[in-house]
């Protein structure tokens, strides 16, 4: 691990340096899914909640990914599923980054007993596998997307807190920070203006990579009945329905492909950003 932060590379005009190959594919895929999530109510092929054809039809020209056990169009439901998975992942990541940033910054900059208390709490949280902890929290709060979201935020923010704390500790030892302290600049100002701008990059890169993981975790919670409620067309819940109709393979395949595409896309983008910002040793 390195404790040296490289300054962000100057971006050339036009396409950024990292936006090539798999990362470009990733960005396109993400953009398409975001567009679908935003606009699908305007052009949806069918009503995602209504039976529109005989049940358990295989893929055909009218129903590209077949129909499910209630005669609903699986392709339509897959498209509408993005309206649950993507916003949930966005809210989880943003909330976790904010909480983790505040906790990590305070712990890293103040040090001492505050750091010890906050980090022990982080250690305890991170001692549990994320999926198990999220399951336990959701089960205690009650099933549903909102509670699953709360559970995921509670599971995820410690990752960023620990990451940012390490960066803050490294940056605060630099001479310009010590100089600022010597001339009496307020601590909050130092943290905001001189430390965080040099420490946030690994967090953002990590957040990008985690986006796909949160999509996966959302689907996992729904798969085991702790996430979206029926008849919501959420990808994980759709896979559960497909599992009970194993020989109608298309029901689970469609949401499975959607999850695969989104997770892969975010991983490509995250990898490219990590390489570009040279934070491999940190993230």
């Amino acid at each position, binding site marked *: 691990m390195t404790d040296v932060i490289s300054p962000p590379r100057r971006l050339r005009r036009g396409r950024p340096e990292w936006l090539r190959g798999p990362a470009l594919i990733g960005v396109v895929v993400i953009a398409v899914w975001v567009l679908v999530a935003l606009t699908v109510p305007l052009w949806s092929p069918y009503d995602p909640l209504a*039976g529109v054809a005989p*049940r358990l039809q295989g893929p055909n020209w009218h129903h590209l990914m077949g129909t499910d*056990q*209630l005669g609903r169009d699986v392709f339509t439901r897959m498209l509408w599923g993005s309206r649950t998975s993507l916003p949930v992942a966005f809210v989880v990541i943003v909330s976790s980054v904010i909480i983790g940033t505040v906790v990590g910054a305070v712990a890293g900059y103040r040090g001492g007993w505050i750091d010890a208390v906050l980090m022990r709490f982080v250690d305890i949280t991170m001692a549990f596998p994320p999926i198990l902890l999220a399951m336990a929290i959701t089960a205690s709060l009650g099933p549903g997307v909102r509670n699953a979201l709360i559970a995921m935020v509670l599971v995820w923010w410690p990752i960023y807190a620990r990451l940012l704390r390490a960066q803050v500790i490294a940056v605060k030892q630099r001479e310009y920070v010590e100089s600022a302290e010597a001339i009496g600049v307020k601590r909050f100002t130092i943290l905001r203006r001189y430390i965080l701008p040099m420490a946030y990059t690994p967090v953002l890169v990590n957040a990008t990579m985690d986006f796909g993981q949160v999509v996966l975790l959302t689907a996992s919670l729904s798969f085991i009945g702790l996430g979206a409620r029926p*008849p919501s067309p959420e990808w994980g819940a759709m896979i559960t*329905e497909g599992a*009970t*109709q194993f020989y109608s393979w298309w029901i689970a395949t469609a949401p499975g492909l959607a999850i695969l595409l989104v997770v892969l896309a975010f991983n490509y983008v995250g990898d490219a950003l990590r390489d570009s910002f040279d934070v491999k040793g940190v993230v």
Partner: protein
Amino acid sequence: MWLGNRKGATRRVVAVGLAGVLLLGACSSSGGSSSGSTDKALLIARSMDINSLDPSRAYCDTCQIYMTAVYETLIGLAKDNTTLVPRLATKWEGNAAQTEFTFTLNPKAKFSDGTPVTSADVKFSWERLQGLQASSSYLVSTIKSIDTPDAQTVKVTLSQANSAFLAQVNASYLGIMNSKVAIAQGATIDPKTDKAEPWFLANSAGSGPFTLEKYQSGAELRLKRNDSYWGTKANFPEVVMKQTADAVTQRQQLEAGSVDIAMQISNDAAKGMNGNGVVVSQVPSFNFVYLALSPGAKGGEKLTPKVRQAIRLALDYKGLIDATVGGAGQVQPSPIPNGFAGTAGLAAPAQDVAKAKSLLAEEGVTDLTLDATFPSLNVYGVDFTTAMQKVQTDLKAVGITLQLNPVEISVWADKIGKDGIPVTMLYFAPDHTDSSQYVQYFGLLKGSQWQTWARTDVSQTQTDLLTKAFAEQDATKRADVYKQLAESMVADDVIIPVVNPNLFLAARSDIKGLYYSACCNLIISDLSRG
């Protein structure tokens, strides 16, 4: 499946299998003879719903199979599912008033430890079933006293006339345990002092063709042949019931030859299964899945009689059968399933959206939202989540919104016991061959399962009609009374059957003697390989 103690806050519901006789392939002419015996264990894939292996507490589909294999009843049921045949008792008779019954035990009958089966064992077993107030205790609720004039004679006096008593005695839950062994292990007839349940989870004390070898919750139930069985010995030296949750896995295991029988194959999973050493058959069954409306539940205040009727009329019954079992089932007019006494000529339920809307308008109900918490189960090939989504769609068309909330069965049981649930879904299969069980379970009799759960007023009409049915000895006239009861329960609109699914039995082609018994689900001792 269990759902609770009859008098406890949490109750356990049942579903027990009963269907018409089904033969898979050629049944062996000798039935349960030992001519085709084999040294290889019989392996069964099944989603087990065991609540207990204590004979006085067990109440589930799997429990019926276990009880029949390990604990014998006084009276058995022939393969025609109607004729009562001797088992532990060689003969029985009732008085003209149907208030006293006398049973004569077979002197040859003995428990697996060699102890003779006596009238004292019968008295203890039934008094314990009555005393522990478990889910199956309703079967002995009319017993007033049991006398044992000698070791082979049992005289039962009832608190009221009960022409269904012999059918109730045939229920697997009235199996007889070795009272001396049970008492030595802490069994009593008082729930406050009884301590035998843990012992029964690892041991058995019956006279049946099998004994309990091992039970691992969530994994397997292992039975061993009772080699000192007093009757015709079972063909298989060992029977292993493997916990296999879903129909797809059961199919895969059966096709791979890793099990001999798959017990819960759904219509969709059964497609294309026949052949390659596997035989699948389907028959109409008496099992059913129902929607239950509880006006007395928290949040169910608006479920007035007219609203409940509107809900019944809003349902697309054929669509529900198509959506849940791919059409492999029937509509069921009343909580008494098709084929039972009192169901002939009942009008089939039909969808009438216009009338449903009209009723809701009369009641001034608009945009009604109801909690629909239901157990996340897949029973008899019916996925409850699928069925409830279809119900939700149908009710949405008349302006009623259901908030679906699938939960674990334990969570569901806790909730319905505590606050009640306005709209829910459950399943049922009979314990014996008489229609009275449905009235005792679904009717609004004082303290009945659904009178308690739905928190409704007691129906004096149903109470009187059941008393009349119990007192009536003429089968035709009794059926007429049951028909009145069925119509009365339909008019309550508390229990609305939504699908009566066909039953699928799937087995390796060398398994003989497989059929569903009306009292006992699956009789393992009748099976052979050959």
